[in-house]
């Protein structure tokens, strides 16, 4: 930090005496006085203060005076700015200006376990914290003109590559020597969840990226504590050195902000977020964490929706996002969330002003917009004494505009001033030639020339003597005009007449030629200027600005309001209690405050909403012990044999439509598991399907922590192709050793930590402190029975093996999932006390399931193993009731036994049977009302209730379908209208979504 302050001071000094420099001059010195007086302009001192008519004096690179009528000393060049508006120069907080992009060479088909980069750096190539933009920055790498044309004078520049991205620099957009452009050499540091150009496998998932960030912070701390005692690591040292810097975390989705914020909370950091543009979808939750956000203004184009069938490729969420994305900045402003605007997401930075005006049209106030481009970034970067507003002594960074740049489509930036130097943006600043010119010359077929069009793109038409209009081919360059036209009525001189002329004040004087080559002189005089009011201003079309509501979640079947718990009584129904007695006929169940509060006959209540259950069945909600829905960007971090450090709970996706689809199948609770690509996978998340709530609110509060283990073909990589024969283990023998090794190391790890904790501080100072290892911490939790194993398993040998490993380390395996050969070792499983969560009838999809039989669940149940049936599949989870019924077909279980397979039994194995899994007074009101016997193929859920909230209601579902169709059509009609007006479009391409299963190994984290 000290170094950085020093840098800044040095720079200040160098600027204030800018005539002095360290570099040689080729030729004679060419120092200019650089004194300018911009007079009579409307000046925005900052976003909140305006001087309607004032003048600004610039001396060298600084503003020296701003006043209404200042005395202008001699030696100042006077620039008349009447009718002009001066704003403080814009600041872009998130660019890669002046840096060269790194090439993404793509991955390798062979696994890559460690960094391919030589040197004392982080083991993971995605940690590039040692990178400093200042070492690579040069004005020669980028053209500043594009950014200047949009009003930007200063940018923060960083390399957008990797998870830890190193430092950025705050630089001026002047065209000058690099040495003179640096405002802050280490202005901030960058982070993201994406590994960018790293060729390494790890991390392949979002949760892996999160774990890598966390472990890197812990490692950096450890290195600091044990300086010179442990390894030298340039990357981790850099993280320590950057601890005082701003941290900008780039995200690709609003939910990422909450994910990153959790890391910030853990390490007591403040992240500034580079948002994704969909923050408006979760604005209330954002407000609670009070973030600072940089947002881009890249709005989706309208879709080509003319074709009815192709239009179906586009989801309601995409349609609505098209409509609402331009309101994002306004939504942040209205929620009083601090934000900055950036060109970052635009294809071309020159589209910025156009997008900015769109955001203003969609409700962003000019004041907020200007603040987001000036004082907010200046404050955030701690340079508000130099830039961000117009005051005496500040850098002369400002823009001179022909009109209101935020709302007036025809307004132009004329010049962008940086450090007292003017850069011309629009070449028309002093020459608005538009108007009507009367010809002083007869016989050339014209009476008047009318010049119109845009300031940088004039057009003209002529008027003939008979007052009829004639097209002129008109060209203007630097006060010179060329006009070609064909009056055609003149019998003497048929053909095209050519005029060439020069402006002298309001006069046009020049030479011309008839079609036969005869020359003539001509002149014209301006008789009328164009009135401001005549200039076409595109007004916001009121139709375009009629917007739909934000829905929760932002998906089809989302609702305008968050659903609330109700007091409900279900009357006169058949209740499958899963308790004793198992079936109650003609019974009422009363729900209040999210709990079941009464079960009985003829419950009388006045407040409760009555649901008639006559002829229907009420059951506990279905609990899916093995699910992979609602997970964002990667279900497997299968890049290493042990990834106990990753957590599914870090990557929940509350917008996944499968949540709603499964509610419609009667599911209320799901355990979201890591995949089965490695022997020790990640930590599980238990959720209730609270559709519309945030990721954190989905989590089953107070649930026991679990972890996914896996055995067999997947972890041996048996079916991954011939190139995947490198990662240990490749046999079941090796799998056992992975476990024995991991638990042995965990024991040693814990011992070392405990021993260290007993030492006094002077003893501690003498030795190396134990490294905090997220992977080992998790393993220790298992050993201490604080975390429980769900193990993917198929054949009896491996099932037997894991129970032996657990016994030898004095803990128990909690659950075998899949467990298709469980029936062969049911007695051993019972003795161990493990639960079984299996499929009803899956088999033959790989060699290790050839002995799978549909009688498995029944045999395990009869032997006395607590058994459940799970889905591992977004589709099958919608009808787990049918899968349970198969245990009646294959194995003759009773209805009650079969029903418990998908309710109470999984509740037990997940340690939540005190809360859910049966209908009992005091338990959570997680219940489903079915139209008929729930185990029948003809059964359909009519209501699915969680915590007393009706999250699925078959009747409301029908209304939602109508509403979805209506909303789609409204937006489609709007797009059709806008396309007719010539708005650019994009093709209606279907976005395929990934549905996760155990063995999905997409690399989700590359660019």
């Amino acid at each position, binding site marked *: 930090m000290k170094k950085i302050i020093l840098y800044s001071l040095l720079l200040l000094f160098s600027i204030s005496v800018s005539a002095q420099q360290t570099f040689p001059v080729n030729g004679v010195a060419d120092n200019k006085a650089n004194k300018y007086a911009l007079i009579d302009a409307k000046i925005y001192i900052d976003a909140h203060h305006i001087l309607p008519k004032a003048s600004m004096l610039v001396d060298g690179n600084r503003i020296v005076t701003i006043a209404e009528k200042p005395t202008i000393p001699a030696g100042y060049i006077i620039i008349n700015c009447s009718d002009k508006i001066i704003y403080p120069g814009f600041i872009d907080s998130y660019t890669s200006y002046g840096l060269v992009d790194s090439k993404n060479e793509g991955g390798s088909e062979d696994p890559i376990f460690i960094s391919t980069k030589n040197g004392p750096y982080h083991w993971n190539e995605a940690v590039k914290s040692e990178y400093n933009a200042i070492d690579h920055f040069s004005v020669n790498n980028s053209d500043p003109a594009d950014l200047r044309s949009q009003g930007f004078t200063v940018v923060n520049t960083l390399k957008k590559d990797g998870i830890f991205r190193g430092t950025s620099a705050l630089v001026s957009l002047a065209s000058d020597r690099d040495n003179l452009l640096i405002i802050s050499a280490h202005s901030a540091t960058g982070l993201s969840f994406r590994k960018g150009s790293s060729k390494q496998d790890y991390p392949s998932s979002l949760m892996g990226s999160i774990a890598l960030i966390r472990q890197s912070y812990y490692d950096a701390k450890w290195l600091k504590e044990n300086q010179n005692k442990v390894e030298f690591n340039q990357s981790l040292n850099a993280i320590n050195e950057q601890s005082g810097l701003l941290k900008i975390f780039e995200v690709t989705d609003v939910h990422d902000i909450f994910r990153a914020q959790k890391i910030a909370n853990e390490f007591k950091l403040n992240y500034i977020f580079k948002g994704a543009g969909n923050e408006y979808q979760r604005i209330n939750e954002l407000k609670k964490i009070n973030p600072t956000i940089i947002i881009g203004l890249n709005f989706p184009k309208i879709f080509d929706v003319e074709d009815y*069938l192709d239009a*179906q*490729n586009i*989801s*309601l*969420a995409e349609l609505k996002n098209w409509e609402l994305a331009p309101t994002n900045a306004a939504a942040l402003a209205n929620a009083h969330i601090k934000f900055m605007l950036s060109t970052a997401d635009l294809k071309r930075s020159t589209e910025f002003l156009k997008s900015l005006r769109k955001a203003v049209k969609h409700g962003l106030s000019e004041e907020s917009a200007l603040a987001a481009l000036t004082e907010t970034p200046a404050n955030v970067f701690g340079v508000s004494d130099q830039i961000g507003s117009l005051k005496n002594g500040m850098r002369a960074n400002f823009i001179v505009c022909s009109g209101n740049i935020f709302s007036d489509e025809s307004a132009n930036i004329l010049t962008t001033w940086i450090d007292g130097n003017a850069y011309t943006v629009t070449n028309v600043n002093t020459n608005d030639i538009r108007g009507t010119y009367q010809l002083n010359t007869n016989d050339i077929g014209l009476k008047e020339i009318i010049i119109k069009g845009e300031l940088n793109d004039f057009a003209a038409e002529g008027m003939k003597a008979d007052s009829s209009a004639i097209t002129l081919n008109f060209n203007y360059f630097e006060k010179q005009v060329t006009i070609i036209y064909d009056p055609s009525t003149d019998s003497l001189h048929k053909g095209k007449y050519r005029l060439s002329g020069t402006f002298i004040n309001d006069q046009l004087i020049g030479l011309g030629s008839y079609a036969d080559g005869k020359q003539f002189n001509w002149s014209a005089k301006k008789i009328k200027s164009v009135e401001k009011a005549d200039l076409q201003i595109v007004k916001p079309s009121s139709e375009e600005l009629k917007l739909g509501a934000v829905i929760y979640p932002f*998906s*089809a*079947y989302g609702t305008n309001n968050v659903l609330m718990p109700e007091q409900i009584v279900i009357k006169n129904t058949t209740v499958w209690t899963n308790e004793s007695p198992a079936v109650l006929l003609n019974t009422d169940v009363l729900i209040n405050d999210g709990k079941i509060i009464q079960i009985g006959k003829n419950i009388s209540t006045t407040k409760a909403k009555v649901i008639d259950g006559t002829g229907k069945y009420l059951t506990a909600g279905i609990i899916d012990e093995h699910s992979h829905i609602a997970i964002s960007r990667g279900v497997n971090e299968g890049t290493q044999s042990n990834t106990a450090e990753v957590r599914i709970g870090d990557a929940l996706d509350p917008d996944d439509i*499968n949540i*709603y*689809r499964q509610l*419609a199948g009667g599911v209320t609770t799901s355990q979201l598991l890591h995949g089965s690509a490695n022997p020790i996978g990640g930590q599980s998340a238990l959720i209730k399907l609270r559709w519309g709530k945030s990721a954190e609110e989905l989590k089953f509060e107070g649930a026991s922590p679990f972890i996914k283990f896996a055995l067999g*073909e997947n972890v041996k990589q*048996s079916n991954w192709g011939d190139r995947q024969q490198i990662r240990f283990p490749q046999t079941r023998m090796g799998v056992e050793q992975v476990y024995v090794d991991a638990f042995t190391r965990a024991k040693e790890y814990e011992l070392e930590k405990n021993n260290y904790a007993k030492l006094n501080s002077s003893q501690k100072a003498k030795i190396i402190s134990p490294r905090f290892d997220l992977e080992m911490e998790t393993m220790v939790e298992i050993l201490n029975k604080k975390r429980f194993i769900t193990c993917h398993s198929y054949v009896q040998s491996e099932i037997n093996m894991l129970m032996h490993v657990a016994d030898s380390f004095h803990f128990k395996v909690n659950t075998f999932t899949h467990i298709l050969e469980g*029936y*062969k070792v*049911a007695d051993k499983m019972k003795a161990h006390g493990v639960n079984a969560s299996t499929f009803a*009838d899956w088999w*033959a*999809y*790989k*060699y290790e399931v*050839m*002995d799978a*039989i*549909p*009688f498995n669940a029944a*045999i395990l149940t*009869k*032997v006395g193993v607590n058994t459940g049936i799970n889905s591992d599949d*977004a*589709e*099958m989870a919608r*009808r787990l009731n*049918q899968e349970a*019924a*198969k245990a*009646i*077909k*294959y194995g003759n279980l009773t209805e009650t036994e079969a029903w418990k397979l998908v309710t109470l039994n999984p509740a037990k194995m997940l340690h939540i049977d005190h809360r859910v899994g049966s209908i009992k007074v005091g338990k959570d009101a997680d219940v489903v009302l079915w139209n008929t*016997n729930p*185990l*029948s*193929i*003809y*059964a*359909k859920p009519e209501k699915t209730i969680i915590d007393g909230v009706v999250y699925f209601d078959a009747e409301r*579902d029908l209304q939602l379908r109508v509403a979805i169709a209506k909303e*789609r059509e409204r937006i489609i009609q709007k797009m059709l209208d806008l396309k007719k007006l010539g708005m650019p479009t994009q*093709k209606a*391409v*279907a*976005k*395929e*979504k*990934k*549905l996760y299963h155990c063995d999905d190994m*997409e690399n*989700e984290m590359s660019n």
Partner: protein
Amino acid sequence: MKRTLLILAMCIVNYAFAQQSGNIIFSGATIHVGNGEVIENGILHIKNGKIIAIQNNQQAYTNDKTAYLIDVKGKEIYPGLIAPSTRLGLEEVEAVRATLDYREVGELNPNIRSLISYNTDSKLIPTVRSNGVLTAMSVPEGGVITGTSSLMKLAGWNWEDAVYKADLGIHLNWPSMRIYSASWAPSADEQRENTAKNYKAIINFFKEAKAYAELKNTKTVNLKYEAMSALFTGDKKLFIAADFSKDIISAVNFAKEFGITPVIVGGRDAHLITSFLKENNISIILEKAHALPARDDEDVDLPYKKAAILYQAGINYCIAIEGSWQQRNLAFEAGTTAAYGVPREMALRSVSLSAAEILGVENTLGSLTAGKDATFVISSGDLLDMKYSKVESAWIQGVEINLRNNQDELNEKYLKKYGISK
């Protein structure tokens, strides 16, 4: 590897066919005919492998003293179900390459015949027939023209014995016009180019094949075109896999140009273009009901009720499940469509008579009608509902087949180990 083969060979199931292709009367059951009708307390009379009578008049049959009488009071009789699009017999273990025989090299393979690979001794087949599926189409996959399928009986000594109708149809994967984006997707341009390239290839191939078929003498034999010839005479059916509405429409229009009425396989969007399908008299082998909606915005129960939409529009459809072992759940797919709007007996029709019609074997198969094959199952409960479905016996062309499978053996072996009664 050799060892694996050996193990598989040892596990081959023996079929003990009851050689009683005689004269039998099944009496007293509820007969689900397969055409939508139900006969309570009915009579099913079979002789020499055929159904000779089916009615609810018990009296008429007490006279035939030569017939063996079986009392099936309280049971339900169904036509043997027909799985219209499967890998049965062509794959054993999905993940083990050595056991896969459904995908040949090349893009245009009409001459590839599924019955050649068909393994009558697959361990999967007995688990399928024990749930009431008694015939199945074995369909090659891969490439553009995947090959020629045959309809197989799910019991037989060898493929010649098991084949029900050989070389029934040619299967074409229609190149999709639907452009999609995903991390794993080729670029939109690449997708378009591919589709265009494949269109061209298909059209040229069909033109060449048709010209070849018209040649009378002196032709150099071309195996691919030989295989195609029967398409143009109507002796083979053309099955085109297409899911999205535009793909279905373009596939149908293409086939019509060659004078062929194709069967559409998959038909995910068929419900969107029912009037087109109706006008062109197109039948659909509809993808399974137990699927997710194709799009986020779709009705959550659309896959369940798609059959009902086709049914109400008067389109002939049958239901297919992909793959091999999965076929044992075919009846429950139909059950789900019954829960979502198809009248129950018509749901049964979609896995029996409708399938027979679409495969062109309705004169001998698909319903319990006098004159047709005696291919049927007897269940103690609703065959379409897993809660009640228990197939007690099954007959193919008058021969009772063995319903036991390896899974039953394992079940009993371990129940015995644990001392548990069944």
